[in-house]
């Protein structure tokens, strides 16, 4: 029942928000996000004793049920979702959003969808939430985004919808391979059936699932929707997209692809790794020449996700553990980045690095926050980014083929390039000539609170990552087995 709360709280408060007007909506959204975070904290805690699960009949005729499970990976991602949404609500609470009721309503609905995706242990239920998480985001971007929002969001929607349909075809095919009269979408049954398929079948079935997940992550060359969508969305939505929704893709690979089609994965893993690494280098190179901070971070996100997806296919348990940690940390760091970008944009009305400069003098607190989060983004030791990235490279290195060494070197190049563009951005935005930026207000109380949560997590998990490592240790080794 507790797991159901994780979905129901944002869902019901989200629906309620549509009816409300004025400041009441903000308060409701904030309280709702706090309650959800508290529940996800409880769920994560329970994971150390007995993982929670929930099961209820849904449509018995087609073997699908409402079954949720919160293992290490699920509860970690629910915790991340809880934290990120709450930070967004806090940081947004002094801003006037036009038409606030629907805006917060859709935000909370998106959260409900995300929670569902992370918790579902029934494939059809997973599919339903996978689609439902998309609909609110579609409305959010199209209504509150920038100038080109409608076309860009539509591209994003069609792209991901097409991927989802491929996954649906794959699921139906998979379920139909079960013995006559015994259709079941339960995770265990899906895994058992998938494993038993002939390698040849797994090899083509792999793509039906993989395309859906690759579009979401996104992996090169399925990424073209992403920079535009990030750029055109209002920042709170960009945070939902980049910190949480892309994790859906990676999560789906770990839960619904690697264990289900092992032979298919083994056959195609080299291809995927090469694509991911191309993505890392390609995105990093493009990031270097960006002048718009938002686009820069969008490309840096592609690079980070590329590294994680490459490691996901190397079949190493350290690497897998690293992915778990890095999923969480990347979500935290990129949320911090976007928050600062939105603060910059609000104060100075531009995201163009050429026009920025001197933040350290005019808004020192903000500049310090930017520096810390940027350092975490490039994985400096004692920040949370370091732990995950170190484990990821460790995973790549442990892989037994010589090809992987090349992969590792090229991926490492990506990290170096990452330092180049991130530090370049910090330098241009935070330092440089003061004259370019008019003195403006430093952090307000709520912005301070939002960033403080992010930064304390950055440092705490950088110094003492043990809770996060413990939470995800079992599931990481289970996936590799």
């Amino acid at each position, binding site marked *: 029942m507790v797991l159901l709360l994780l979905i129901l709280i944002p869902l019901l408060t989200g629906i309620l928000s549509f009816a409300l007007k004025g400041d009441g909506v903000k308060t409701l959204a904030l309280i709702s996000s706090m309650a959800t975070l508290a529940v996800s904290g409880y769920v994560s805690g329970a994971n150390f004793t007995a993982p929670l699960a929930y099961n209820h009949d849904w449509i018995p*005729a087609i073997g699908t049920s409402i079954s949720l499970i919160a293992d290490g990976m699920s509860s970690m991602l629910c915790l991340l979702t809880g934290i990120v949404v709450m930070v967004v609500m806090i940081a947004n609470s002094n801003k006037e959003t036009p038409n606030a009721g629907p805006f917060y309503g859709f935000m909370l609905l998106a959260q409900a969808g995300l929670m569902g995706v992370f918790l579902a242990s029934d494939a059809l239920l997973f599919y*339903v939430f996978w689609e439902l998480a998309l609909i609110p985001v579609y409305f959010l971007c199209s209504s509150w985004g920038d100038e080109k929002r409608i076309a860009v969001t539509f591209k994003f929607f069609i792209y991901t919808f097409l991927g989802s349909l491929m996954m649906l*075809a794959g699921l*139906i095919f998979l379920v139909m391979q079960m013995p006559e009269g015994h259709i079941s979408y339960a995770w265990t049954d899906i895994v058992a059936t998938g494993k038993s398929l002939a390698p040849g079948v797994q090899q083509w079935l792999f793509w039906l699932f993989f395309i859906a997940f690759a579009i979401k992550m996104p992996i090169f060359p399925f990424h073209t929707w992403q920079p535009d969508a990030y750029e055109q969305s209002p920042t709170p939505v960009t945070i939902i997209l980049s910190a949480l929704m892309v994790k859906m893709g990676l999560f789906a690979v770990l839960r619904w692809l690697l264990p289900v089609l092992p032979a298919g994965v083994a056959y195609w893993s080299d291809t995927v790794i090469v694509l991911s690494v191309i993505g890392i280098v390609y995105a990093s190179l493009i990031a270097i020449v960006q002048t718009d901070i938002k686009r820069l971070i969008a490309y840096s996100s592609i690079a980070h996700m590329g590294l994680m997806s490459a490691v996901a296919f190397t079949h190493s348990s350290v690497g897998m553990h690293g992915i778990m940690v890095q999923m969480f940390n990347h979500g935290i760091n990129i949320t911090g980045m976007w928050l600062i970008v939105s603060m910059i944009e609000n104060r100075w009305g531009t995201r163009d690095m050429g026009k920025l400069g001197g933040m350290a003098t005019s808004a020192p607190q903000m500049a310090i926050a930017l520096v810390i989060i940027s350092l975490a983004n490039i994985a400096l030791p004692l920040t949370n980014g370091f732990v995950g990235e170190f484990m990821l490279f460790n995973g790549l290195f442990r892989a037994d083929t010589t090809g992987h060494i090349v992969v590792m070197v090229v991926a490492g190049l990506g990290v170096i390039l990452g330092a180049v563009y991130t530090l370049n951005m910090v330098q241009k935005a935070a330092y440089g000539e003061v004259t370019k930026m008019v003195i403006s207000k430093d952090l307000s109380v709520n912005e301070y609170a939002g960033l403080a949560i992010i930064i304390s997590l950055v440092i705490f998990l950088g110094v003492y990552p043990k809770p996060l490592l413990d939470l995800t240790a079992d599931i990481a080794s289970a996936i590799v087995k």
Partner: protein
Amino acid sequence: MKAIIATTIFGIIMMFTSVMVSNKKSVAAIAVALFAVLLGVNIFELYTWNHAATPGPQLCYGMLTLDHTNLWFNTLMTGCTLLYALLMTKEIQKVGAYVAEYFALIFFILCGLYLLSSFNNLLMLFIGIEILSIPQYILAGSDKRNLKSSEASLKYFLMGSFTTGILLMGITLIYGAARSFNTADLVAILHTDTLNPLALAGIMFLMIALAFKVSAAPMHMWTPDVYDGSPTPFTAYMSTIVKAAAFFAFLRLFKDAFGNLSDHWRLVMAVITAATLLVGNITAVFQQSVKRMLAYSSIAQAGFMLFAILASNSKSWDSIILYGVAYSVATIGMFAVLVKLKDYTYDGFNGLAKKEPLLAFAATIFLFSLAGIPLTGGFMAKYYVLLAVVQQGSLLWLVIFALLMAAVSVYYYFRVIMAMYFKPGEAELNSPVSATDKMLLLVTCLVVILLGVLPQLVLG
């Protein structure tokens, strides 16, 4: 049987009503009441059947068979008709002077529907299709001042009669090969290994005739003009419940009578399905009028329903019933929104969300359902037909093609949503939307969502 008699009597009552009652509103109220009674009759028949022995009673010298599936289908379709009548009564009154006759014709269409769902004999199929079609030719032309409506009627009539000829030819050839009209005899006499070429030709003729009735490509040419030209409330009926009935008959014939000859017709059917999906979806993308888009969308949706016939297995009945209901409810709802607007182009929807939030919300739910977004009836329906056809095996290429086409369909359905929510404008309404209309639309939305969450409700 009770329902068949009842609907005929009600049709005649409606015709007399036109003489006795002059007030259009009272006529419509009587019609709605009679639809409700008819639904009651159907439910009564369904309920009493459950306690009768299997197999179901044979009627008309064995030419009709009642069983649970077709009684259930009749009940659901009568329910949809009642919903339709409630949503559209005002609009039907606006079409012309002969309101009572319009309703009478709808009762006769229902009579055809009942025959089609329970036929056991090719002659009954023929009679059912004619009873279903002739009232439609009249309804299509009921807006006499409008040239397009007359054109639609004439076109539909000419093409329809031509198809009737093909249908009869098919039945004759089958009779020549099997010396029987009874589907049970056909199953016994026609075997794959000793199939008479006459019978094969007959099957193809029947397939062409029925494909015409369900507007499957390449027999779809009449659909856009007829649906676009007919008065909108009648388009809503023709493109939904009538189409579902034709599909039910199609499935009944090809599964029950020609099921074990499926090797002979499956490939042709697969090509028809692929063509229908392609033509419907791709052409719908280029439409500027929402009404015409919905006409093409009905072709595209027919492509999905053809999957049930293509599969012809244990899941086919469930999937055709669910698809028929989900598609009908969503499309009727969408037409109910459409008739409220002055301008039927996409631009006519601009800014509707600001002006009438509830209307826009309802339309969004209906469009979600048509596009197949989860938790709406349309998703479950698509899911069931795909399940049926994947179980059949060997047609996975078609499934993937269909899903690609479903992604295309998102393009034209979401264009309406974009116009309503994101484009600035002042959508002009024909008349203010009353509280009753809003309530009814909300109920329809609820049905759409309920079908998506608990599809077992309509699956007996």
